[in-house]
């Protein structure tokens, strides 16, 4: 009896103190490094991740024991790739496997450097990101930090995104981020978001001594991308950072002062920037979820599969956002409802209803009059915004035409004809009444009978 109680208490304790992963995808992270010693370079970064309850596994890409998948499922939830120099990736972690990993929902944080190998460059091309050639760096002769070693490659990144789904306001307005690495060019696909880019005086070129810039650089000015983020259609996130040194301890602690500028900060913005970036990439931030949707006719509550044309219905959907380690009500105001039959017939913006702080999801509601066309429609909420996960929620309903007794009883355009026919009736009755009681016709009657 006491043994049973003990077991029960143990199970309860384990249940209560179970560690809930902060990320909505999971907390198993695979870290790929060029060599074992690199782990010490990023000790602060990795420690902060472990404090956020991630389980980090450090491996080299040339290690044959590392495998992203196990029995067909992902063995890790996230991958941090700080191994840009390595050329021979083993098959289990080569770009094709990493691509499969993303397709299965895994998130990747890719760090590059000037020594980026062709393997990872090919991987980035899959996502429409074009890194510059090997041994090139981002150079800015007007924006480099005072602790630069003369090549003007240690720059204070100037352009930062305003998207608060990816970075918090403190980071956007805080100290600049130190960067030393390779530039990339971003493609035009709508899945990409620019996160950090260089100023107008930057360019990407080789840094050999006495190098003259005589060829056209790949990117120039504020098209020089330093950090880009991609959210795939299955909501997996891949972030491309052109500088692994951005995450290094040295940059985390370094003070910032731009040459020829009086502005100086005691600590760079790198640590907070890296924290926000990993929060977004590892699905702790900007994650949306639909918790329920309903549609019903006004004044009813039943959700029908068959509606009638020109019916008035109420459509509600509840959307929840994951922020600060719990699901809370989403704050977007531009969620739209569409009624689609090959093309949208109706598109209406849903109004968010006010919520109390304990509610986990915000309800959006709209009053809609169904279109005048019958057929099989899809009620869809297709919400795709940069930085937030994509929501595509659809329910299929049929819309039937009027029954024969549901048509309008009197057509307003036909009133002249109605009055004409009615006047015929009235005229005929009056005429026959007058005819029968007329003295002359009764005279004819009398004549006949006599």
């Amino acid at each position: 009896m006491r043994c049973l109680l003990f077991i029960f208490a143990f199970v309860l304790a384990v249940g209560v103190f179970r560690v809930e992963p902060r990320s909505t995808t999971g907390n198993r992270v695979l870290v790929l490094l060029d060599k074992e010693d690199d782990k010490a370079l990023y000790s602060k970064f990795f420690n902060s991740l472990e404090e956020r309850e991630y389980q980090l596994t450090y491996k080299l890409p040339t290690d044959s024991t590392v495998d992203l998948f196990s029995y067909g499922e992902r063995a890790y939830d996230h991958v941090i790739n700080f191994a840009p120099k390595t050329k021979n990736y083993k098959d289990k972690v080569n770009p094709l496997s990493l691509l499969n990993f993303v397709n299965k929902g895994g998130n990747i944080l890719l760090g590059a450097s000037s020594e980026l190998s062709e393997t990872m460059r090919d991987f980035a091309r899959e996502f429409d990101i074009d890194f510059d050639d090997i041994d090139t760096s981002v150079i800015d002769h007007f924006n480099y930090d005072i602790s630069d070693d003369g090549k003007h490659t240690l720059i204070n990144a100037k352009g930062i995104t305003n998207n608060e789904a990816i970075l918090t306001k403190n980071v956007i307005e805080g100290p600049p981020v130190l960067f030393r690495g390779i530039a990339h060019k971003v493609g035009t696909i709508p899945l990409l978001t620019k996160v950090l880019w260089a100023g107008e005086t930057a360019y990407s070129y080789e840094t050999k001594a006495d190098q003259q810039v005589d060829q056209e650089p790949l990117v120039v000015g504020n098209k020089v991308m330093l950090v880009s983020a991609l959210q795939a259609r299955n909501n997996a996130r891949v972030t491309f950072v052109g500088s692994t040194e951005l995450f290094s301890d040295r940059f985390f602690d370094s003070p910032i002062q731009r040459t020829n500028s009086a502005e100086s900060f005691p600590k760079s913005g790198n640590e907070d920037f890296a924290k926000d970036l990993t929060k977004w990439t590892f699905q702790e931030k900007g994650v949306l979820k639909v918790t329920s949707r309903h549609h019903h006719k006004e004044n009813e509550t039943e959700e029908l599969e068959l509606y009638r044309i020109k019916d008035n219905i109420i459509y509600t959907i509840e959307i929840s956002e994951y922020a600060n380690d719990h699901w809370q009500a989403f704050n977007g105001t531009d969620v739209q409802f569409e009624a689609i039959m090959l093309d949208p017939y109706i598109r209406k913006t849903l109004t968010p209803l006010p919520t109390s702080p304990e509610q986990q999801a915000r309800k959006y509601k709209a009053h809609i009059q169904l279109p005048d066309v019958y057929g099989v429609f899809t009620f869809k909420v297709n919400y795709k915004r940069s930085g937030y996960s994509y929501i595509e929620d659809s329910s299929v309903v049929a819309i039937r035409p009027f029954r024969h007794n549901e048509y309008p009883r009197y057509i307003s355009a036909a009133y002249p004809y109605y009055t004409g026919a009615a006047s015929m009736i009235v005229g005929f009755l009056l005429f026959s009444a007058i005819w029968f009681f007329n003295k002359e016709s009764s005279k004819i009657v009398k004549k006949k009978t006599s």
Partner: protein
Amino acid sequence: MSDKVSSAIQKLWTSYSKNTPQSLQLIDTYLVFILFSGVFQFVHCVLVGTFPYNAFLAGFISTVGSFVLAANLRIQTNPDNAGEFKSISPER
């Protein structure tokens, strides 16, 4: 020219009101009323379009039918034609 037409119309009107019996004049006013109603509906349809086509047909054909029946009544009750309708009783 118009003088002649107006005097002809005047003559026609006096001859009509003197010579036709009152019952026939009654039917005639009824017929005129039906005619106006039918013409009005037809002109309305031409101007506005045939949208509630069924309603137009209903209204117009009811006028036409009433006109035809009333005209038949006039023919049968005209004393000048009494010879042709001996087989029909006054109550028809």
